[in-house]
């Protein structure tokens, strides 16, 4: 089989039958239960917490409050640590916070014998607050006199950056006569990952005195570092184990509650403590996609040339920095990388603290936001000059050979234009654009599109490092250990295929160890940035080559032949030239273990420090039907076309795209976290937070354009995150085509659409004209 085949998931049977163990399946006996107590104000100070009544309840073991935790601020994002202080993540929270920065901030924790006792105790805590005016928007946060959310950031601005490209300024570019100018604001809301397994961990102190944490995380090695930082103890004193996990999408690329859980087990003498969030807590108190506001100004020539653009982007961070400014900086880069301006591009972006839910990593890391602002603008620009939006894109979009002038990331392979061609043909773009141009009546149809590009991993912005270990067994089978994590995307399967390919050993003899244990698993920063098949894949290839060499060296010794004349093919040692089988690998492996002349346990372990990157790209094309009087959008046909290099496992790749498209559909049409005027979450449950159901999901079509990428270990590049990116702007643009109404914020929810259609004169009172 090897790579490029539809090899069946190695965990398929275990997951279908329920044999696969997740964190909650592994609880030790007599495990205590922790419950976090959250603030019921969004901005202020905890003055006092009365714990007496709660402590008196039967079953309550320990209550800790924000007054009891170490005076240490720590960072939570799952970035590789930087040894340079200026590049380190923002440390702006404690295990429990006396200074309340959003509704639901962690102010106390209860450890009890069971959930009911913990919940009853939590309800009995009496909290005295000093309350400040809630700050619910970046504008309010930056207004003079606004209260300071973090004393280290007196103006509430976490960071501001910007860049300019071109030979002149935007203002100078505008002096050209005859330019058509567009000025608009676009907005995207807070949404959440909604991974099926809520954040859960259990922690205990082992007999070797290590604090051991079993957690549903994407980033076990980073969790170890952050727990050490948060508790002020050596990182080696922490052991993190990651079993199977039920999805992460970036929310588990943040170190959310493992540090608190480690602290709680310390407080109860090392007894095991489980800390599992409810869905409501997950929605209100973990991480979410940042709300962003785009203020854009752009000028085009009537021939369709994009002359100049200027954009200001505000990212609403919420109460804590988490991944912080990196996300809006990514969004800003999409403006730069995806289109070329003939004369000038000016971008400024800022990340601003507010008293709302905390923005963090979520599939696409700022690009879904940036792509909405950008691709809505591109359609609006095309409309300004009455040009087909496909042609307008083709004329101005990023071309083969592009290299980012700042970070020097390139398209080592380029398939964007082919993706556009494929999508255009699939949706019958030209026919539908013409057919739907002049519609009347309450039900109208339209087609729309959006494109994107996305880098693979984080080099050179952050460190890219990965390590792998391979151990040969007596029967010629091999354990493969990586710090890279399986989070549902199929990493273990693809690593199995890669190992088979590089080793010459069939997949049935390859055991990728799914569980990471930071005490024994080689270092890797984990699953994020669509990096593992690229970055960790390189570590696997490097290690595999070393293992093969060691096997052949030993086989050469046994066979009394030069190792260079041998090869390992399908579990056999063969003559490299003739292919003749000389000895089975199993025999050689057994010999290596037990030889009285020369016993050696053949293993290999290598680190790959990846100093390369490459852009993936793609497009979404969609056909919609809009029921104008009801404000409903029905997706009739949708296709994502991806330029992600060679596909390591086409079926898994397709499944990955399906999931991303589903996420994009929710972002487009229904999902949004809402807050009241005090900053209290309104819809922090899956009834009121409108994640689409299977009934809302159309058939999802996927096309791949497979251009081999020389920089990838097997010609591959990013695919994990990209599918979620282009769907929302494509749907927005299709609704524009169907109705002529440009909706400039997400989601395209019915109430918003009804208002927009009414303002545009498409709906009249009593439904006159639309029987």
């Amino acid at each position, binding site marked *: 089989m090897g790579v490029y085949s539809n090899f069946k998931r190695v965990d398929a049977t275990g997951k279908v039958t329920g044999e696969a163990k997740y964190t909650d399946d592994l609880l030790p006996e007599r495990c205590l239960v922790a419950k976090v107590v959250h603030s019921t104000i969004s901005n202020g100070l905890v003055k006092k917490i009365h714990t007496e009544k709660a402590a008196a309840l039967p079953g309550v073991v320990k209550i800790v409050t924000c007054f009891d935790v170490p005076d240490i601020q720590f960072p939570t994002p799952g970035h590789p640590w930087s040894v340079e202080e200026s590049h380190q993540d923002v440390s702006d929270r404690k295990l429990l916070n006396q200074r309340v920065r959003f509704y639901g901030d962690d102010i106390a924790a209860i450890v009890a014998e*069971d*959930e*009911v006792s913990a*919940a*009853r105790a939590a*309800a009995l805590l009496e909290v005295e607050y000093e309350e400040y005016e809630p700050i619910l928007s970046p504008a309010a946060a930056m207004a003079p006199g606004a209260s300071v959310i973090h004393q280290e950031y007196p103006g509430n601005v976490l960071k501001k950056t910007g860049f300019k490209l071109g030979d002149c300024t935007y203002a100078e570019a505008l002096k050209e006569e005859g330019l058509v100018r567009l000025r608009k604001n676009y907005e995207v809301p807070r949404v959440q990952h909604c991974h099926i397994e809520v954040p859960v961990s259990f922690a205990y102190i082992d007999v070797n005195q290590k604090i051991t944490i079993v957690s549903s995380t994407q980033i076990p090695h980073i969790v170890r570092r952050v727990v050490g930082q948060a508790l002020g103890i050596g990182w080696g004193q922490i052991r993190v184990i990651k079993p199977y996990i039920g999805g992460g999408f970036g929310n588990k690329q943040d170190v959310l509650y493992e540090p608190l859980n480690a602290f709680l087990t310390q407080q109860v003498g090392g007894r095991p403590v489980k800390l599992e969030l409810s869905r409501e807590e997950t929605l209100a108190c973990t991480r979410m996609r940042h709300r962003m506001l785009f203020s854009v100004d752009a000028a085009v020539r009537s021939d369709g040339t994009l002359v100049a653009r200027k954009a200001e982007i505000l990212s609403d961070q919420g109460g804590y920095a988490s991944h912080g400014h990196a996300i809006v900086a990514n969004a800003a880069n999409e403006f730069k990388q995806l289109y070329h301006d003939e004369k000038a591009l000016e971008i400024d972006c800022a990340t601003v603290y507010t008293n709302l839910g905390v923005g963090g990593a979520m599939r696409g890391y700022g690009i879904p936001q940036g792509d909405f602002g950008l691709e809505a603008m591109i359609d609006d620009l095309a409309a300004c000059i009455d040009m087909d939006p496909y042609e307008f894109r083709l004329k101005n979009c990023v071309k083969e050979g592009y290299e980012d002038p700042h970070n020097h990331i390139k398209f080592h392979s380029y398939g964007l234009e082919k993706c556009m061609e494929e999508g255009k043909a699939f949706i019958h773009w030209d026919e539908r654009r013409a057919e739907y141009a002049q519609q009347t009546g309450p039900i109208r149809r339209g087609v729309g599109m959006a494109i994107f590009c996305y880098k693979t991993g984080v080099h050179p912005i952050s460190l890219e490092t990965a390590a792998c270990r391979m151990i040969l067994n007596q029967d010629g089978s091999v354990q493969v250990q990586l710090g890279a994590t399986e989070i549902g995307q199929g990493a273990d399967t693809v690593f199995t295929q890669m190992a088979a390919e590089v080793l010459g050993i069939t997949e049935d003899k390859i055991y990728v160890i799914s569980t990471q244990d930071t005490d024994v698993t080689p270092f890797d920063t984990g699953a994020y940035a669509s990096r593992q098949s690229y970055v960790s894949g390189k570590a696997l290839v490097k290690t595999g080559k070393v293992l093969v060499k060691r096997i052949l060296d030993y086989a050469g010794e046994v066979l009394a032949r030069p190792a260079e004349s041998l090869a390992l093919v399908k579990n056999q040692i063969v003559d490299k030239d003739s292919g003749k089988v000389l000895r089975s690998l199993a025999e050689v492996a057994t010999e290596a273990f037990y030889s009285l002349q020369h016993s050696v346990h053949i293993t290999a372990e290598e680190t790959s420090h990846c100093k390369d990157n490459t852009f993936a790209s793609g497009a979404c094309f969609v056909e919609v039907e809009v029921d104008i*009087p*009801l*404000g409903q959008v029905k997706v009739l046909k949708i296709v994502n076309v991806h330029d992600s290099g060679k596909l390591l496992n086409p079926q898994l790749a397709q499944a990955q795209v399906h999931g991303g498209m589903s996420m994009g559909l929710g972002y487009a049409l*229904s999902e949004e976290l*809402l807050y*009241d005027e005090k900053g209290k979450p*309104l*819809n922090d449950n*899956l*009834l*009121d937070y*409108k994640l*689409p*159901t*299977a*009934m*809302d999901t159309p058939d999802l079509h996927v096309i791949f354009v497979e251009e081999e990428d020389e920089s990838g270990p097997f010609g591959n590049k990013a695919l994990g995150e990209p599918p979620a990116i282009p769907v929302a702007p494509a749907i927005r643009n299709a609704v524009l085509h169907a109705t002529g109404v440009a909706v400039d914020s997400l989601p395209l*929810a*019915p*109430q918003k659409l*009804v*208002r927009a259609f*009414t303002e545009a004169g498409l*709906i009249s*009172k*009593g*439904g*006159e004209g639309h*029987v």
Partner: protein
Amino acid sequence: MYDLGSIYQARAIEDAIRALRERPGSKLINGGTDVLVQVREGRLAGVSLVSIHNLEELKGVRLEADGTIVIGSGTTFSQITGNAIIQKYIPMLGEAVDQVGGPQIRNVGTIGGNVCNGVTSADSGSTLMVYNAVMVVQGSEGIRHISIHDWYAGPSKTVLKPDEVLLNIQIRKEDYEGYTGQYLKYGKRQAMEIATLGCGVLVKLSADKEKAGDIRIAFGVAGPNPLRCRQTEEACRQRPVNRETALFISEQVLREIKPRDSWRASKEFREQIASEYAKRAFIQAVAKQGGEIDA
């Protein structure tokens, strides 16, 4: 883990009534799809429950000799949808309750629970309103028959007394024979929704299918309880079945409904949906009876 004070499994209706009387403040539970949610949320934490789950005498649908359809309060939504009597005589009810939540909820949740929690968004509510359903309840003081029109007593409230159990819901022959109806539910998703607005329209056409003999219009989530639009209904009787009448209905209902403004949906938006749905439900109900409205 649920924080329950106590739970008593009743063996019969009389047993349930006695348990309710002896344990003041306790709550009835059948399918549990509303009650358990409230326990989990903490609103009913520590509650004492009396369970009528699986009481055979509360289950099933039957047709009486006089044509009255009797629906046991413990009949689940999916049982109602799949029931032959419902499908033959009052299909609109089966269609309406088939829009509750998702399959798992419909396999467990009961029509009795749906009307006894008193919420305006219950998918069965507007349909039972147009069928003039009669609620039969039993308590310490005996059996009472209560018209659905007298059933609701404000937001999430009914006239059911603390020691009463809803036995069944009855629909008389004269309220369904010759009628066709359409229930339309507006949710932001196609499943797993509580109605943002619900509209049920029941019509009986004249013999030549040209005129509206009788028309009944009810809404959920257009006021604190499900409600009927009596004035619109009255004004439509004997009107021709045509586009003008459809438009007339969509305008007139706005005078009779009082939807709330909330973060879930604005008053203005609910009115737009109500207006449009009244029209569409009317057109579809007419079509089911062989009438035609030229759209």
